[in-house]
């Protein structure tokens, strides 16, 4: 046990000017080895993600990954970056705080279908409509993985689970369709087994200025096999080439198609991003305050309270 009576900085920054070599996916591997079950879809998501980071040459020191609680939410531990493995359902507002606090960071959210659509359902519409510039990857395995197989909001109708002994009564929620209704400016869908296309979707989502939702179908091999993933493997289709992803209503139709599960970018739109609006009004300067924080106008305040 070292004797550190107070927080100490480990030295101030040295400016590095040597050109860095182009990073590879491996450079983004975190300190922990993934502990998912063998065959879990989340492995595919992780490798697509690391590859996307490398391709985008994202600086790990300026990357923050925020998650909730669930198997999928363990992901930040497996990436080399700043990470926030928080509470069940609260990843979205945390991520918003991180981004509002430090707008220069790239902020990514990872969470499960239960995390985002059940306990976190109240935060999703608000983040989306605010068009905060964060990327939300929902790893949808249609089941509660970590707690060992209860009904989730995306479990298909009629399926037996540990909490639906007579089959799920409800009809499932559709995260991509909801994101559209909520006013998300980027909505896409991918599949954990299709790592390469998934990587491209992740890259597009990160590059998008504004709130992006990326629903990733990612099977739970231990508790979620029955949730229709065998069928998905065969039936998932890319969005038709003629689909104009600026067209909201055809995006909605693709998202909710009863026959096919469409993957790809369903929707993308340019709309003023939340933080830039706040910044236009003077706020949300974050760590940029280093460049000279505006002073408190004491005289005005004294006058106001006199």
């Amino acid at each position, binding site marked *: 046990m070292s*004797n*550190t009576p107070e927080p100490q*900085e480990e030295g101030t920054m040295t400016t590095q000017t040597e050109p860095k070599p182009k990073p590879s996916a491996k450079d983004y591997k975190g300190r922990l080895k993934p502990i998912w079950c063998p065959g879990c879809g989340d492995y595919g998501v992780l490798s697509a993600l690391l590859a996307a980071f490398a391709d985008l040459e994202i600086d790990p020191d300026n990357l923050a990954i925020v998650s909730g609680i669930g198997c999928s939410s363990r992901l930040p531990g497996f990436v080399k970056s700043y990470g926030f493995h928080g509470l069940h359902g609260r990843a979205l507002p945390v991520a918003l705080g991180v981004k509002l606090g430090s707008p220069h960071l790239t902020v990514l959210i990872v969470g499960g279908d239960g995390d985002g659509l059940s306990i976190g359902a109240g*935060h999703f519409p608000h983040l989306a409509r605010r068009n905060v510039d964060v990327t939300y990857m929902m790893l949808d395995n249609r089941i509660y993985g970590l707690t060992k197989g209860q009904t989730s909001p995306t479990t298909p109708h009629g399926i037996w689970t540990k909490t639906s002994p007579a089959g799920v009564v409800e009809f499932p929620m559709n995260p991509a369709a909801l994101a559209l209704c909520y006013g998300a400016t980027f909505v896409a869908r991918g599949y954990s087994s299709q790592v390469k296309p998934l990587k491209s979707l992740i890259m597009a989502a990160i590059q998008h200025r504004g709130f992006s939702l990326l629903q990733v179908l990612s099977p739970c091999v231990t508790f979620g096999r029955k949730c229709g993933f065998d069928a998905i493997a065969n039936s998932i289709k890319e969005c038709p080439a003629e689909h104009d992803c600026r067209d909201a209503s055809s995006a909605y139709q693709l998202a909710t198609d009863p026959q096919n599960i469409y993957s790809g970018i369903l929707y993308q739109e340019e709309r003023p991003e939340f933080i830039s609006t706040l910044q236009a009004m*003077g*706020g949300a300067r974050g760590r940029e*305050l*280093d460049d000279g924080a505006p002073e408190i106008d004491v005289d005005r305040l004294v006058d106001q309270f006199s």
Partner: protein
Amino acid sequence: MNRNDFVMGISGDAGEGVLLYGDLMTRIAARANLHISSTQTFPAEVRGGQSYVQIRFGVDSVFNPGDKLDVLIAFSNLAYHWCKGMISSGAILIIDGEPETVDRAARFGDWKGGPIYVVPMTRIAGEEIGEKRAKNIVALGVTCALLGFPADHAEDLIRRQFKQKGEKVIASNLAAYTAGRTYAEQHIEKRDTLTIPEIDGDGHMVMSGNDAIALGALYAGCRFYGGYPITPATEIMQLLADELPLVGGTMYQAEDEIASLAAVLGASFSGVRAMTATSGPGLSLMSELLGLSAMAEIPVVVVDVQRGGPSTGLPTKTEQSDLNMAVYGGHGEFPRVVMAPISIRDCFNVMRRAFEIAEFYQVPVIVLSEQGLGHRRATLPRRMLEQTPKADVVRPLKQWRDGYARYAFTESGISPRSIPGDPGGAHVITGLEHWDFGGPSHEPENRVEMVRKRFRKLRNLDRKYGGVFAFKGAGILQRHHATTDGEAGRLSSVEEAFRGDIGIIGWGATAGVVREAVARAERRGISAAAIFPRMILPHNDMTIRPFIEGHKSILVVEENFTGQYAKFLAHHYSIRPAKLNKYDGLPFTPDQVLSKIEELADHV
């Protein structure tokens, strides 16, 4: 009547501009270098839409809005009836009506006070200004003339008040004010001796407890506020909504209290000083996130402006009943700090300490204010804003060494903290139990060490921040901790406050009332003193123990039913203190505390 210290009540219907009258009156007095303490808490017997403001004026500082009214301004007969029972003998009544035709015997037969001035406020407003609703401003003119306030401050304030509404509105309100003054000067024969003295100075500011908390946060370097409206805390958020963007910060109205605190934790994680403010129901909802803050060691300041509980309870009434939740709420065991400002001035000061502690010790700090403090107003010296240094919010990048461990074990329990953006400082925080580098762990030995590390952080906090305020006679002493002698006090020695017959312990907003009760007790020959610890958790044993040991009998005063702080002290000191509790939604008055002191004095 002591013209150095008198109480005014203003009573009227919701639409009659009572609140504006009160606001302007306090500012006029403050500019004339009088001190004030005012409250807008409705008197309890008033139902529905009636408005009431009570202002106490003093040549010296006044610490509470007082007991009985020396002056009553009644905007109607009904308003008169609500308040006629609250007056002191010899009180002055200023009431709307026709002085010539009013049947004084019938209308004021039950008046137990002194001079009555019937003033045709409504008529003046209607006839001379053409706007009956300006009667509150007419009344203001009348009062100012009667009490001897100069006109210039009032006129300046009226101009500012109506600036948004244009020149016409300004002019007619100025006219109303002048009409009131003129009427008083020409038609009222002054039958009382109440005139305010002339005092030198630059004037004071007037602020509510909620204002002071918001400005305290601003000065403490808070640059992110995440919140959700809730009575009686909303004004903090509203003031910061105006102020934060001006200094590069952000006020974020979230979808609920859970999202508020989550966003605050996110912002704090990213390196910004961040806070939220709420009231009881909101704090309940934040229970889970408070534990995360402590477990992941993310600094946060949470203000709870308490109101009557439980559940939705009494949203506009005051109570001190969230202490237990602040100290014990949330599942599992985690370190936290609980502070309670004792005055409006202290609201400002406590926020600085709260942010310092939160950031240095990486713990959640809960600040317990209450409706009776948040909505009360007081005069404060301009130098409070002019001379208080502002916290430096710039946080330069740091480079971290290889193998950096976010939760490194240290003797102090405090681990060096990297901030996103810092090169080499990457780490993942988690609410799961974890290894020093942050990875989840349920290994028993590490677990034990981590629990100890987290709690170790609080070990010496009471020495550094555990100040108390001590009151005895007319004296006050601020004792920072056991080893120094206190500062800026008017008490000659520490011993003076820490030895005597009756020792009162309280917390938070009751200080203003208890202080006065103690002073009055001394005048009656009773040996009584009071202390108010500003930091409730960690418990400041070093200061409270000698106080308890130095007094023959201990009284704990709090606005709740179960005696939460009394219980807390009981289990630290194995004592059974006397208790004075109130839980009807109204703050104590000095009289009520004094009676209890007298009762105890009979048995010492």
